[in-house]
């Protein structure tokens, strides 16, 4: 099914926003959880304390806000584009996550992981070349 040009433009724009806000949100969540520490005590009381500390963490709230913006862009794009198109196409965020994890959190990213992330992006490029909608319009 051929789509008008306007749909491609706004689809690419919103998927770009999804990639940026999604990856930034994940990196901020990792920053917050790193500050809180690894969850290792499964006692309900200890879990509640961790839960409480999680929701008093600035980076966690910034991460949630960023993911909320990601979610709004995601909802909008899903109203016209296929799920099986949007989900893989937004995977460019994986590259951003690895780069941000390396730059902002000082994570050690082995070369094999970089190659893996690039292969994921190659898959994304292939998926991006297919039409955004294959189902009939309601």
């Amino acid at each position, binding site marked *: 099914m051929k789509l008008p040009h306007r749909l491609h433009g706004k689809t690419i724009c919103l998927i770009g926003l999804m990639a940026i806000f999604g*990856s930034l949100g*994940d*990196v901020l*969540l*990792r920053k917050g*959880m*790193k500050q*809180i*520490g*690894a*969850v290792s005590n499964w006692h309900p009381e200890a879990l509640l304390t961790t839960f409480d500390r*999680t929701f008093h963490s600035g980076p966690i709230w910034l991460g949630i806000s960023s993911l909320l913006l990601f979610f*709004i862009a995601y*909802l*909008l794009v*899903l*109203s*016209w584009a*296929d*799920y*099986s*198109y949007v*989900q*893989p196409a937004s*995977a460019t*965020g*994986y590259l951003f*996550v*690895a780069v*941000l*994890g*390396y730059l902002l*959190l000082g*994570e*050690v*990213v*082995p*070369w*094999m*992981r*970089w*190659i*893996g*992330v*690039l*292969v*994921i*992006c*190659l*898959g*994304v*490029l*292939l*998926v991006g*070349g*297919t039409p955004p909608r*294959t*189902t009939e*319009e*309601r």
Partner: protein
Amino acid sequence: MTGRDAAFLFIVIFGGTGGELAVTHTMKRVGEVQSFYPHHLLRVILRAFRSGWMWFGLSLMTISFFSLLMLLSWENVSFVVPVTALSYVLGAFGGKFLLGERVEPRRWVGVALVCLGVLLVCVG
């Protein structure tokens, strides 16, 4: 990757993908968003939240979110997030069999490459 990591990854992937499929189902019923004025967007979002599927999807996504937080307390984000790309296989199958989308061969190749990439991330 430890067994504990694998178990939480499983919840993140199934919860996240199940939630996304339910949310997609809702948004397809709401219809294409044509206007981006705030009051029009708010109306669309309110309409979406009147659907039971939306709440079901959000519940699954919440479970997935807390599992992701647990994973992120143990492992680096540059490992956890790319590995969650395994949800693409589930997403493509879900799109095809649950939502009736036609997944072209080229998309399948793309999804397969995503899987290969995830494998390399795990090995790395």
